[in-house]
């Protein structure tokens, strides 16, 4: 079991702030994130947009307890641009976030950028390694070499960031179990504080998806399942405790920002495609720079897929996303939090999952998925949704 930083202990409710930096040097084959190759003054305009959007948020007296810059490739910004973005983050009084993560691609890790990030107060760097093997990097359409990975990692370590994460991808076409184990072993050898291992996902509208639909690559669910199981066992043994489907940490290094979103706390996302859950609403910005600029200019934000955060929705999502975590969820606590939700059905659904060996219901009311359950967490989610029958209503 992994120790969890307790959000409830503090008087201050957690608030995550997410910045989406929508620029990449090129598009990776598997990528479904919103990103473009920056042209002309696109970055400068983006920074203006971020400043404008931040001013639209009704922060009140709230401070960001955690922050996360993702993308895209935040590291594509020049040091000066990073500073300007940092100023948006720190504009309001209330101080720095306790945890502040920035995603960096290995090729963008430079001493100048590192210095700026350290100065801003970034505490955590997440680096998209994906694989240590040139052939697989090539197959993914990634623009970095193993040498760049090692150089970047050394720079990060030298800069003494409190926490460094490496992202890896598995179940790649052409990757056998042995190749994956080699990648894992190499990652563990570097001793990062945190590891995220992602099963390759075939997302619609990606180059990979096209290959799949053309039959040039094949989906192999059994292979994916086996890779998952091997990964979990391997990292556990190597001292990285799993705390979520794809996330592993050495003691004290769990990513609190993500933990908070899975616990249905509040977060504010700025930038194109960024989602927010704040002030009783959930919604996302348009995944397009010009549409986003337009919306901000008209004084609106987070209008896409907008839903009101009803107790039913929050209760269902707390369970659905909470069960993705190894710690699971505490049913009585949720029940106390959202008494109006249809708990009878939800609990009988949990019991049924328990009967099938997919879930454990502990005496304190803590519900956790078993290994088998974690492998089918989406199907479990759908099952829970049916139990709650709490389809979020779209607001006209």
């Amino acid at each position, binding site marked *: 079991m992994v120790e969890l930083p307790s959000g409830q202990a503090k008087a201050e409710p957690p608030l*995550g702030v*997410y910045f*989406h930096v929508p620029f990449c040097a090129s598009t990776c084959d598997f990528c479904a994130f919103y990103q473009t190759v920056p042209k002309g003054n696109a970055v400068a305009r983006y920074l203006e947009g971020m400043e404008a959007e931040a001013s639209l948020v009704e922060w009140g007296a709230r401070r960001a307890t955690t922050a*996360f810059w*993702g993308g895209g490739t935040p590291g594509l910004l020049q040091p000066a641009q990073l500073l300007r973005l940092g100023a948006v983050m720190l504009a309001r009084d209330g101080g720095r976030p306790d945890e502040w993560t920035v995603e960096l691609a290995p090729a963008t890790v430079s001493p100048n950028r590192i210095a700026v990030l350290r100065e801003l107060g970034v505490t955590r760097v997440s680096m998209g390694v994906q694989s240590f093997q040139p052939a697989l990097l090539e197959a993914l359409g990634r623009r970095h070499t193993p040498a760049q990975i090692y150089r970047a990692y050394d720079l990060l370590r030298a800069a003494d960031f409190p926490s460094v994460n490496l992202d890896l991808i598995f179940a790649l076409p052409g990757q056998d179990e042995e190749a994956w184990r080699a990648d894992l072993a190499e990652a563990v050898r570097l001793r990062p504080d945190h590891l995220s291992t*992602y*099963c*390759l*996902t075939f997302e619609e509208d990606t180059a990979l998806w096209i290959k799949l639909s053309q039959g040039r690559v094949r989906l192999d*669910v*059994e292979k*994916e*399942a086996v890779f*998952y199981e091997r990964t979990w066992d391997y990292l556990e043994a190597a001292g990285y405790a799993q705390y979520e*489907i*794809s996330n592993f940490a050495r003691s004290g290094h769990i990513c609190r*920002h*993500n933990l908070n*979103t*899975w616990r249905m706390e509040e*977060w504010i*996302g700025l930038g194109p*495609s*960024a*989602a927010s*859950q704040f002030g009783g609403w*959930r*919604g*996302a910005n348009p995944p397009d720079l010009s549409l986003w600029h337009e919306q901000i200019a008209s004084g609106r934000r987070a209008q*896409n*897929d907008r839903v009101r955060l009803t107790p039913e929705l929050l209760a269902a*999502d707390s369970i*659905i*996303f909470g069960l*993705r975590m190894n710690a699971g969820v505490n049913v009585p606590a949720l029940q106390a939090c959202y008494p109006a939700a249809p708990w009878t059905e939800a609990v009988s659904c949990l019991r*049924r999952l328990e009967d*099938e060996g*997919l879930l454990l219901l502990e005496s304190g009311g803590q519900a956790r998925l078993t290994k088998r359950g*974690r*492998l*089918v*967490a*989406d*199907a*479990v*989610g*759908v*099952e829970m*949704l*049916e139990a709650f029958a709490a*389809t*979020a209503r779209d607001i006209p």
Partner: protein
Amino acid sequence: MDTTLTRNFCIIAHVDHGKTTLSDRLLEYTHTVSQREMTAQHLDAMDLERERGITIKMHPVAMVYRAADGKRYKLNLTDTPGHVDFSYEVSRSLAACEGALLLIDAAQGVEAQTVANAHLAFAQGLKIIPVINKIDLPSANLELCMRQLEDILTIPAEEAILASGKSGIGIAEILEAVVKRIPPPRWTDYPATRVLVFDSKYDSYRGVISYARVFSGTIKAGDMIMLMSSGQKSEVKEVGAFHPAMAKGKELGPGDVGYIVINIKSTEDIKIGDTITHANRPAKEMLPGYKDVHPMVFCGLYPLEASDYEKLKVALGKLRLNDSALVYQAETSVALGFGFRCGFLGLLHMEIVQERIRREYGIEIISTYPSVVYRVKQHGAASVEVDNPVNMPDPATIEEIQEPTIRASIHIPNTYLGDMLNLVMEKRGVCEHTDTLDATRVMLTCLLPLNEILVDFNDRLKSITRGYGSMDYELGDYRASDLVKMDILVNGDPVDAFASIVHRSKAETQGRALCEKLAEIIPPQMFKIAVQAAIGAKVIARDNVREMRKDVTAKCYGGDITRKRKLLDKQKEGKKKMKQIGRVSIPPDAFIQVLKTNH
């Protein structure tokens, strides 16, 4: 009225032995239609019937023929549907005649349908004129055909006329034989009007048009008539003859074949084989041979797209207008949704109706396993007829179940005799006798349960004999048999569409095959799901649906949560569209796939 110059006849033949071609030649020879009109008429023929090996039933034709004796004869040629599924209808068409041309393809010899049709014609007391056709073919084997005539059909070989519809050989000889050998109309002096209805068609302008043969008396527009089977009275709106187009006439008299339009709405109201008589001077006896026909084979028909239900209903209604043997009734199935339980005269009838729904009405349909009509005797209760396994009474109350049998006449090359006998045995049949047709072919007469030939018998027969075998059958009697109802359960809940009535000895094999197929086709499930075959409470076969191995999104952070939530909602909505068997959600087409692969 002088009937001595009238002859009523028909042509009976195995499919492709040249009936259509020969009919055309007769019409041409008697100048009934010009050659050009002929082609046009035949282009209308439905592909379907041709493919299925039934000649399409055309309406009767009246010809005028100046015979060698110098007299002008009126020859009425009626057509027959030519397949035993419709044997009752065939028998009624035959009953409208005094004689029949029995056509045999000189290169093929006697085949299954030849025998079946010949027997029906004998039974109607018709004078049979054997015609060996296609003698122009180099492979014609006249000697063999002659011998088969004598040996199999007991018709003297010297009566045979050698002909070729294609080359026009023997046409005059055939017409002479019709005049000389076939007797003039019978039963003309019966003291009241009796008219046989041997077919009816629905016409959207005129309503129901009945094809009729007058035996005695006359009938004309304005007459009040009575349908003797029901006593229903009605007024005649129009009568006429076929020249070959429908030509309105003043009246129909003894020996005439023509059409009658009476004031009724649907073909259901006028039964094939019924006798029409005058309402105020009614005949005492009906013409012989009338039967109420009952469907023998039932199955559920469901639209693949639920939204096509109304279209299917309309299609069945329209088909029924011209096919009173087709019956249907709305039903719902847990697995397949809303559809219809339909009854058919036989297997072929069932296939034709399904095919016409697909082709002519453009509706994709799926059918459940066909079932015959069982007679179930219950302890201390009246016996019931069951045409849907779902309605089978509780086994504890059942004293005996009887099933319909058939007498099949199977023609095959003798090299395949062993395999064929094995098939018959596998299908719980017995071979009563085998007759040698010629040096290479034999005819088996077998008794089989009707239920056993419903699904794949014909396909197996064809594959065993490399396509050279043929079969025809007539219905036999009901016999007691050790039958049980087999349920298919998914996760303990019965799936109605797969319930079946099977012979106890076959339940396990069939149950296992079905379970395997279902378990394979149902997509992997998160829960352990068993598929079982059971007789009552006793499970006789089981299999497991594959377990879902992996269904989890790798990345799920703040930004992904709206997206992810939408995906899950979509999946949940998708599940609603699935068929719920108890707790298990199964894509609707899974059942359909199983039904398809098993047909």
